[in-house]
């Protein structure tokens, strides 16, 4: 009876070479029998036979998990006869790592001569199987296949003289697959194609495992997790049968599962094929082995796991995984074509990263500030994925900053924290429907990469939840940056798209109007309405009053104040609501059109006309050819000196027709009307001195002003 606790692992890449001492100890007891000691419970042993080759010997590993460094001897037996012995003293890093004993040498190798000796036993023993056991115990090592009989061994030896190597390892192919997984995939793909030509039928007794969960990564790799019977290969060609047949290549790694019977093991791995599982599907079969006689079957219900769940699962099982392709699978999870978030945790090397600020302009890209700590690998490139859009980093914009605030969290990394912070610009358009699931990819100089999920809350949209001036913390000299012209165009486009919302609340026609933009300060809004009523009711001339207000938190007050004013009947009154009061200038033609005004005076939000200003506004001509009049603004705080010679579009009077022509050609000024100066081809315009004043210093919108300044050098009047 064969005892096998674990189907065992394969020799990993770290221990690819056979021991330098392939011969081992070739000894037998005098009478061929071995005394069996009961000192160590059989359950404490783990072992596996990887390779049986007449020319290479019999190789594998065994470990006493209760005492991994305990030196053991193995016996090659035929029935109860010990044919040969050897020491367990060869390095097997994969096994040692798996069992947490880095200094152990659990590998062994029976020399080819030991196999030859077994094959030379008499014909009476021809039908007897060989076995390998731990000396002094009843523990027998297992392997993927049944060990050969004496007669079979003799035949192998005969064939070996022809050069054929027989491997009992999990790669069931007679020839050993390349270490490189890409090359191995190519070989197996060919075999899978051939397998797909066959008629495949799932016979229940041939079910060798179950797929319990599936996840598909953005690169199209299907990841599976479940269980399978021990003794099967862990990389093989296959055919996925899911309404149709898909040739596939499967790479698996195994891990212990306490819920499984002894003859089964947990499995996790990748299925490379054109197959894409659909949620809710059951009865998907993965046929493998010779002729496709075995199959894995999807469990019912089949769980579709997210990428995050996939990574969490792998992180849990990673310490106990074994199999030739374990490292390769780990790398696949963090491969450059995979955007599964959180791969930094499973990269196998230390890397931490975090994004703290992300300012997005959909038509341009995203400005990102964060930090990355990579003690081992040098950061070469950054990429950002938002939704399905991948934005490359503009290398000219990427720079690093010291992050001494990380010193306490990462002591002994001062050299790293000195340049752990990064600022980068990621270029590309991101439609609003794609603004989900942001992931930062860090690419390293050696070609590997890791993915780091971003908290969606760090993304703010410029001009909406973030101001343009917030960018100055990223790029204080933004106007000198290479991306600035393209960025400016995108800002103007964004601003232009916000101009269009105009909501009339009440409209009364008047041939001449004073258009007053309502400030967002509550007290100033009260003052504006009070002053307007006072001036108009006490004046001889009575133009209509048009109020333009933002659709903000003062709306109720504005409506109440407007209602009180309109009820007086002192003059015609209109009220419009807009989304952004700063772009009222661009909506003026539409507003004046609805009011059917031939001429107007416009006063931007935050301005109050002086006595002189009101005099001019009340007495301006109502004519289709009304001349341009610029109202000088007293800037009492002198924060931003007004332009004494030309005035600005913040406060001016004109004819509606001339305004419409001018606005039609006006570029989009991001900083509002202050950046624009009305210009009449026929005349310079009349400047009315000290006609208006501000209730508050003008907010310095630095970036917007710089954008407009660049525009001004190109603007067309």
């Amino acid at each position, binding site marked *: 009876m064969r005892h096998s606790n674990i189907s065992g692992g394969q020799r990993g890449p770290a221990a690819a070479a056979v021991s330098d001492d392939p011969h081992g100890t070739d000894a037998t007891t005098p009478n061929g029998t071995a005394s069996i000691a009961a000192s160590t419970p059989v359950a404490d042993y783990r072992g596996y036979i990887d390779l049986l080759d007449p020319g290479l010997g019999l190789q594998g590993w065994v470990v006493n998990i209760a005492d991994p460094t305990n030196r053991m001897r193995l016996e090659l037996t035929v029935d109860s006869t010990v044919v040969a012995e050897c020491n367990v003293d060869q390095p097997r890093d994969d096994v040692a790592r798996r069992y947490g004993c880095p200094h152990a040498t659990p590998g062994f190798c029976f020399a080819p001569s030991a196999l030859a000796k077994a094959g030379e036993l008499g014909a009476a023993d021809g039908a007897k199987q060989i076995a390998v056991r731990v000396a002094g115990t009843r523990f027998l090592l297992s392997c993927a296949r049944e060990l050969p009989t004496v007669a079979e061994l003799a035949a192998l030896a005969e064939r070996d003289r022809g050069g054929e190597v027989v491997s009992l390892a999990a790669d069931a192919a007679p020839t050993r697959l390349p270490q490189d997984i890409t090359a191995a995939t190519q070989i197996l793909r060919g075999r899978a194609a051939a397998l797909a030509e066959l008629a495949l039928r799932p016979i229940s007794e041939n079910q060798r495992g179950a797929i319990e969960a599936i996840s598909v990564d953005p690169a199209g790799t299907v990841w599976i997790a479940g269980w399978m019977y021990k003794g099967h290969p862990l990389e093989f060609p296959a055919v996925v049968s899911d309404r149709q047949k898909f040739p596939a290549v499967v790479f698996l790694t195994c891990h212990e599962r306490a819920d499984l019977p002894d003859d089964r093991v947990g499995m996790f791995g990748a299925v490379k094929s054109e197959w894409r599982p659909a949620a809710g599907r059951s009865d998907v079969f993965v046929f493998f082995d010779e002729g496709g006689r075995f199959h894995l079957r999807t469990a019912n219900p089949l769980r579709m796991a997210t990428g995050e769940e996939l990574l969490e699962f792998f992180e849990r099982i990673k310490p106990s995984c074994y199999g030739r392709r374990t490292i390769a699978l780990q790398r696949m999870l963090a491969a450059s074509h995979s955007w599964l978030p959180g791969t930094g945790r499973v990269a196998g090397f230390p890397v931490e990263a975090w994004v703290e600020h992300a300012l997005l302009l959909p038509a341009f890209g995203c400005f990102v500030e964060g930090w990355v700590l990579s003690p081992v690998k040098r950061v070469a490139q950054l990429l950002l994925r938002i939704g399905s859009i991948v934005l490359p980093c503009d290398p000219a914009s990427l720079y690093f900053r010291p992050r001494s605030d990380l010193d306490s969290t990462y002591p002994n990394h001062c050299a790293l924290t000195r340049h752990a912070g990064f600022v980068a610009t990621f270029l590309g358009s991101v439609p609003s429907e794609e603004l989900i699931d942001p992931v930062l990819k860090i690419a390293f100089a050696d070609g590997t990469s890791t993915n780091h999920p971003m908290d969606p809350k760090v993304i703010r949209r410029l001009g909406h939840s973030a101001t343009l001036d917030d960018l100055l913390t990223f790029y204080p000299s933004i106007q000198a940056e290479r991306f600035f012209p393209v960025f400016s165009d995108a800002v103007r486009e964004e601003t232009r798209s916000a101009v269009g919302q105009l909501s009339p609340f009440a409209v009364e026609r008047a041939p001449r109007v004073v258009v007053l933009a309502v400030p967002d300060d509550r007290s100033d809004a009260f003052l504006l309405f*009070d002053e307007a009523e*006072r001036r108009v009711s*006490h004046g001889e001339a009575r133009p209509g009053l048009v109020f333009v207000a933002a659709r903000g938190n003062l709306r109720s*007050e504005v409506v109440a104040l407007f209602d009180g004013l309109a*009820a007086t009947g002192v003059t015609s009154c209109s009220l419009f609501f807009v989304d952004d009061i700063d772009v009222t200038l661009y909506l003026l033609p539409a507003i004046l059109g609805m009011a059917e005004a031939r001429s107007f005076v416009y006063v931007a939000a935050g301005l109050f006309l002086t006595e002189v200003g009101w005099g001019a506004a009340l007495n301006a001509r109502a004519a289709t050819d009304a001349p341009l009049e610029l109202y000088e603004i007293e800037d009492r*705080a002198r924060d931003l000196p007004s332009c004494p010679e030309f005035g600005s579009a913040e406060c001016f009077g004109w004819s509606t027709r001339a305004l419409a022509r001018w606005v039609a050609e006006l570029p989009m000024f991001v900083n509002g009307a202050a950046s624009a100066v009305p210009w009449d081809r026929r005349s310079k315009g009349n400047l009315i001195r000290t006609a208006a004043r501000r209730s*508050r*210093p003008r907010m310095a919108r630095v970036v917007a002003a710089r954008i407009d300044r660049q525009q001004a050098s190109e603007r067309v009047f």
Partner: protein
Amino acid sequence: MVTSRKSLRPAALEAPIAITSHSHPSVSKGGAEIAAYTLFKGLLSLGADAIFVAACPSNSHNRLDLGSQREYAIVYEPFGYDHFYHLATRRLWQELSAILHAHNVALVNFHHYLHFGINSLRRVACDQTIKLVVSLHEFLAICHHHGQMVTRSGQLLCKAASPASCASCFPEHSTQQFKLRRELFLDTFGIIDGFVSPSRFLADRYAEWGLPRECLTVIENGLAQTARDPARRAQSAGDRWVFGYFGQITPFKGVDTLLQAAEIIARSPDLATRIGIRIHGNFVGQSEEFIARLTAAVERHPFLSYAGPYENALAGDLMSECDYVVVPSRWWENSPVVIQEAFAAGRPVVCSGIGGMAEKVTDGVSGLHYRMGDPDDLVRVLTRAADDALFTKLQQGLPKVADGRRMAEAYLSLFDRLLEDLPITEPQTAAVPGGSAPSAARRRTQCQRRAPACADLGEALHPDHKSY
């Protein structure tokens, strides 16, 4: 000066007069509304045709108790008022205007523009048929900090307003906004026929701020009830001298100075047996920490007691049970009613030696001054006051307190001159030095058009208004 009824010009008694107040005494018992109501009652007692119009917030509507058919309340929503420029929505003015025109009111005396808004003042002023007088009870036009002329963060006395200093107290408003505010107030005040101040101190401050002195008349507030027995309270041997505090216990009223003085007194056993401090009033705007501190001090010191809130009508009786009344305010004060009540009760006053308090209480004559906010100096003065001879001298120096009738007589004298378009000259007892009285008609020229006639307004009145 007592002006007999025969000497009054008939105009003041014939013309309907409206006294407006930012609140009704049944809802709020502040000095301004009590003074306004006292004047109203005094006018009625003189036979004047007077009505009383109060603004009442909608959330206090249920406490409103109008005393007669001549009293009106305009209920307003706090939503429709701006407390920086003091502007109200038009609705409140429409209702006020309807009342004024329904009564053919010839003169309106605003005791405060709060809640009505200075735009309502302007609208009244622009109605050429109505004379307008504004009684000033604090410095609200000058100081955005509750009109106290006390800095916001440091609670320091402010001697003069400027846009820059005001903006530093209120950084949420700009210097330009404070300039606009001042201009708005001065523009509006420029078309008002006359101003009344209960104290020379307040009048001087407004004059320094920009109000023409010739517009200002000083008329002391009258007390609704003045009959008191000024005799010394009955004392037994060994009784302490009782110094009583009366009023709302707000952060401005200086009760914290009293508590600090109590700690100093406690360290001197002799003083602790001679001096008693009794605090009357309710807590307004005080922190839980302060209330706990006062409670603990009362428990710790036998000479310190807290008598709780009190009815205004009982103030005189309660004061009679004290020897002195203490007014330890930390702000300038204007003409504290409590000082008049103390005088009416025959009690000298110990007060901070600043502002309106120093004006109403003559040091060493009708009371004693101490350095504002200095508990050591307060203790020194209390110690000095605990002396029979001094007490008797101070009692003899107490001035006679005007009642509502006398207050009304003084006001009617002013109203007469305005109604007759005569220059304002001041009663002999309350002269504001400097300047000659301009013609009221000249100020009217600033308002170029008449206000819309009442018939244009057509607004329904609030059902709480009594019929008229």
